[in-house]
């Protein structure tokens, strides 16, 4: 993946609220991931339109954090989820 790649959830995967347990989860075919706080903020911006750079930029602005650091976190998380088949780009 490059900063220009546009990530989206792979077919059969989606982020949804798990209200009964007070958390958000990624539902997939007979599996489920529970993202931590940082991962959740990133995944909320995965909409099939924003690029990796766009996601990092939006988060850097919101949390007033250095964009390069955030871009590295975004790339690491989405790459990991891509190898697991949760994300496509």
């Amino acid at each position, binding site marked *: 993946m490059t900063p220009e790649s546009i990530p989206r959830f792979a077919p059969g995967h989606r982020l949804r609220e798990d209200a009964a347990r007070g958390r958000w989860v990624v539902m997939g075919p*007979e599996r489920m991931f529970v993202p931590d706080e940082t991962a959740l903020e990133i995944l909320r911006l995965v909409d099939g339109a924003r690029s990796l750079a766009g996601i990092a930029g939006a988060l850097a602005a919101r949390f007033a954090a250095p964009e390069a650091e955030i871009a590295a976190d975004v790339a690491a998380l989405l790459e990991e989820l891509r190898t697991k088949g949760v994300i496509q780009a």
Partner: protein
Amino acid sequence: MRPEPPLALLAELTHRCPLRCPYCSNPTQLTGAGEELDTATWARVFAEAAALGCLQVHLSGGEPMARRDLPALVRAAQGAGLYTNLITSGVLLDAPRLAELCAAGLDHVQLSVQDAAAAGGDRIGGYAGGHARKLTAAAVIRAAGLPLTLNAVVHRQNLDNLEQLIDLALDLGAGRLEVAHVQYYGWALANRAALLPSRAQLEAATAVVAAARRAHAGRLVIDYVVPDYHAARPKACMGGWGQRFLAVSPAGRILPCHAAESIPGLDYPRVQQTSLHAAWYASPAFARFRGTDWMPSPCRGCERAEIDWGGCRCQAQALLGDAAATDPACDRSPRHGLLADALAEAASAGQDFAYRQFSESNIRSDRIV
């Protein structure tokens, strides 16, 4: 202590199925079409499941495609916010019917095969032409862009074809392959001598899985668990009785596991009278084997008590006639020797099956309604 809410609902929509697998997990006393819950009742059950905390519904059977209202059921489950997984044999699935299910919001399909090729598959499933229809169904599912899991139930008569089953999963574009060993209660227990694999077969299969996982990493996920009859420790059946899942039978019984009706003396609530919430939190049947308080020796105080929860209650019932005993799959059970006896018996047994079928009384109840 209040139990955690369940994660998933297993909705057994019907026991009707064109196939006759000799290891079918349906009860030996099958429910006829006339006793099945109607569309509106299932829709209410799905809403109750979502409100209770379920995230996913497995639409299962029997063959769920035998329900003509399946698109409406998918729509109701999807509308309730549940992730919808269709568990099908595929023989009734064609492009127009799948298009309806997709439009209704279906998320995923798990398609079963009985063997890697038609001759074995059709013989084991007891349905001529079934395997070819499954291949067509898989192509239709992938063409619709739906993620596909291939489910291969394995046993002595097809385990040697595991490499071909893995190739089939790859050819069909499945993202996941579930290699599920037969669980021996109900129909499968009656056919156990014809189905149990040998230790040598099992070791070869385990090596095949390990190699295939390495070779196809990132392309195919393979789920595989060593079967009870060759393991020293039992499985945490259903993640513990009444702890993670609930099932609803075609006639509306609310169960901790799809096989739980095999245990006598438990009064399972019915969706017609009891909400899923009340069944989960207040019914004696769900409380009966929940947690560790019910446990006998050697489970009581065992360091694995909260890992495997004493194993499978239905297996203890089926093999020992006592659902409250330690699962004999555990080598700490005084009755563990029964499993070795069964393996010895299977080693010299033939290959013939007693196929799943509706009993006379079932057929009659079908006709009345």
